[in-house]
């Protein structure tokens, strides 16, 4: 046994000359009585309910956060809009009354898209007119040149256009 161990043993022996005061009997009566009273009053907290309760609290917190974020963002946007010029609505052209054009479903779709994106209506009509003329011209060319299938020209591009072909 080394010196340190001897010192430890000495102090352990000294400590054993005392003991802890144990819980008195009246303390048992008091505490067990209070515990039983609590038992009768408090229903058992069923473990599976705990995660459910956490889930409900989390959901409520999420709803609160999202709705408050919505509310404050709307308030912010409203404050920006006050005093600004209001956009005026322009009557759209009656595209349905236009004379029938080739590939009309495609063109109508294209026009509908163009209309929703708010493009300049006059420019669009001019463009359509040019496309229609080009297509008419191409159809005529096609009927005259059907005997030459080997040519690699675009049917959609007007003759004499300066677009380069990469194919």
């Amino acid at each position: 046994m080394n010196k340190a161990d001897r010192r430890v043993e000495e102090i352990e022996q000294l400590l054993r000359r005392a003991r802890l005061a144990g819980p008195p009997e009246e303390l048992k009566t008091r505490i067990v009585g209070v515990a039983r009273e609590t038992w009768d009053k408090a229903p058992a907290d069923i473990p599976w309910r705990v995660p459910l309760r956490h889930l409900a609290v989390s959901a409520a917190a999420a709803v609160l956060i999202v709705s408050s974020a919505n509310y404050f963002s709307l308030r912010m946007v409203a404050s920006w809009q006050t005093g600004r010029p209001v956009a005026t609505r322009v009557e759209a052209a009656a595209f349905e009354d236009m004379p029938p054009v080739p590939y009309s479903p495609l063109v109508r779709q294209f026009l509908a898209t163009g209309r929703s994106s708010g493009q300049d209506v006059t420019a669009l009509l001019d463009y359509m007119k040019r496309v229609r003329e080009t297509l008419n011209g191409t159809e005529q060319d096609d009927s005259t040149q059907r005997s030459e299938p080997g040519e690699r020209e675009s049917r959609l591009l007007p003759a004499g256009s300066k677009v380069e072909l990469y194919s």
Partner: protein
Amino acid sequence: MGQERRLDQHSAEDLIRATLRRDDPAACELLWARYASDLFAFLQAALSSKQDAEDVLQTVFVQIVRKRQHLAAARCLDAYVYQMARNEATSFLRRRRRKRRLEGNAQRDVSRGETPSDAPPWLVAAEPDDRSHETAEVLQAALTRLPPLQREIVVLKTYQDKTFREIAEMLEVSLNTVASRYRYGLEKLRALLKDPES
């Protein structure tokens, strides 16, 4: 002998679990029989006061009863109960410190080993003679001046005959920590008994 004690502990634990699952209030007595003595010792060591230990012990038992279904489902009953006791002791000390700070009366600081002279001793003489009484008083004063973890380990090892492994499980610290803190605690205690002013 240690193995027998472990077996007894396991059977007592199983019995408590079964009673808790049945939601039988008889579990209160079983819990008292199993934990009261150890918890009381632990709380006296942690709080350095018999009266405070009694109050906190009652709070711990009430908490155990409120969370009885969690206790029944706990992996380790002892660890759960001691965790509760530790939490209660910590919050009690915090409340006491705050109260004293508000009152501007810091003369009873447990960490400095100052306990009121009129408080009942939590360490008593093993033999009923005057010299032992005096020794018990000196030992209590010295133990109170140890850091809390060292004090708890020394008390549980010396007076409750707990093994280092059991203390490690109870306090949720490593075995090496328990062994080293025990040694440091005894060294410091020796120094304090030699020179109380150190």
